[in-house]
């Protein structure tokens, strides 16, 4: 059963210290800011966070890092013009970084949700990011063995949910949402509205409700588009 609530605080309250948390978004697009802020407020610490980036500006993921709650981050592109919160923690040796090529990051998350034990990818072969990893030549091409990234929780921003947790997304804010929703034991999603079951065309569902555990309604979470087809 999907839990539907208006309280982001309640939705993240059971995330324990030391948890691994997938956080959706590519930069600001699709970042579940209200869920992250609730996580900051909850005081949970020693988190391992998986995100494409390492926070922008001072809100959302940057605030979580700035508050010293993230022990380790797995991401592809931490350094940006506005990643000063991460930069300071990294330079102070207060956060551990695992740098992963973006496509490998996505596929490792996808693999976790799909029950894949590991996979061979050509990305990264011959580079420093493949050092120490198993390499295999298949049909004349070299591949690197990569392992799935499983998580205890996923925090995802979608556009709209129905009562059974089916989700649609909006434009490039979709990014990591569908694969993260599938890769966590408990998936918590924020949306701007929840519609009754039956009001969402099954043909347009992107993330089926089987992957969703909790839905938080944040009316300001996304710009509603009345003209947009369901």
């Amino acid at each position, binding site marked *: 059963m999907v839990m539907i609530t208006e309280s982001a605080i309640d939705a993240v309250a059971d995330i324990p210290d030391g948890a691994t948390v997938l956080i959706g978004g*590519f*930069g*600001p*697009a*699709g970042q579940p800011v209200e869920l992250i802020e609730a996580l900051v407020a909850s005081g949970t610490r020693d988190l391992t966070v998986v995100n*494409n980036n390492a926070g922008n500006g001072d809100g959302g993921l940057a605030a979580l890092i700035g508050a010293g709650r993230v022990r380790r981050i797995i991401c*592809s*592109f*931490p*350094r*940006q013009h506005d990643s000063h919160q991460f*930069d300071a923690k*990294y*330079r102070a040796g207060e956060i551990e*970084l695992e*740098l*992963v*090529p*973006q*496509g*490998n*990051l*996505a*596929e490792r*998350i*996808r693999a976790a949700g799909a029950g894949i034990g590991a996979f061979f*990818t*050509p*990305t*990264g*072969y*011959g*580079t*420093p*990011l493949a050092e120490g990893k198993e390499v295999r030549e298949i049909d004349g091409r*070299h591949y690197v063995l990569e392992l799935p990234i499983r998580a205890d929780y996923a925090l995802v921003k979608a556009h709209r949910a129905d009562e059974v947790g089916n989700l649609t*997304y*909006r*434009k*490039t*804010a*979709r*990014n*990591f*949402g*569908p*694969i993260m929703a599938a890769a966590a034991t408990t998936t918590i999603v924020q949306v701007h509205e929840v519609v009754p079951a039956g009001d969402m065309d099954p043909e347009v569902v*992107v993330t089926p409700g089987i992957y969703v555990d909790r839905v938080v309604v944040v009316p300001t979470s*996304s*710009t509603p588009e009345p003209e947009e087809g369901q």
Partner: protein
Amino acid sequence: MSSHQTTSFVEGPTRLGKHELAALVAADIPHGAFVNLGIGQPTLVSNYLAPDSGVTLHTENGMLGMGPEAHGDDVDLDLINAGKIPVTELPGASYFHHADSFAMMRGGHLDICVLGAYQVSARGDLANWHTGEPGSIPAVGGAMDLAIGAKDTFVMMTLLTRDGKSKLVDACTYPLTGVRCVSRIYTDVAVFLVDRAGGDGSVLVRETHGVTFEELETLVPLPLRRA
């Protein structure tokens, strides 16, 4: 792939600026191609793709059919490119999640990827993500996936560093992004065709701009051949 590849060597009179270089790359992109343009200078190529080029732009954060940068009321923070700049969508656009986006890249479905570079080797090794300087924070993003994913990887760069060293090298000294992945190098003074199979270690020169072939030979520490 393009008609230029079979033409014989030509010498142009003047060195190319970055906009002229972008126009040259755009002219080499075949009609109907699916293309990813890297962040920075490669993005300029989109300014020179004719409206009837039939080229579809891919952005790795999950979109095909990306339009020009958005301004004013068209800005939508849910619609951004890989450089996190607000963009627009063209008729026929589609959205997909990150694993699908990189699967279409890694799976060889994109025709051309255009990237910047710190260094490229004679056999097409690319270094463009990290200078390896102590204390610098590494960031790779999609560079490694882009480099090896598309059918053809084009590099746009100035031939020389600020202190006059060739970025086209025998072997990269910066950390690699990908191995034997670059097929063509567009620079301000020459266009190079790379044999990714290695060949005899020499590099084909399709055209020069503002330098003669002989002058180019003095700038690049590799055996060169006219195309």
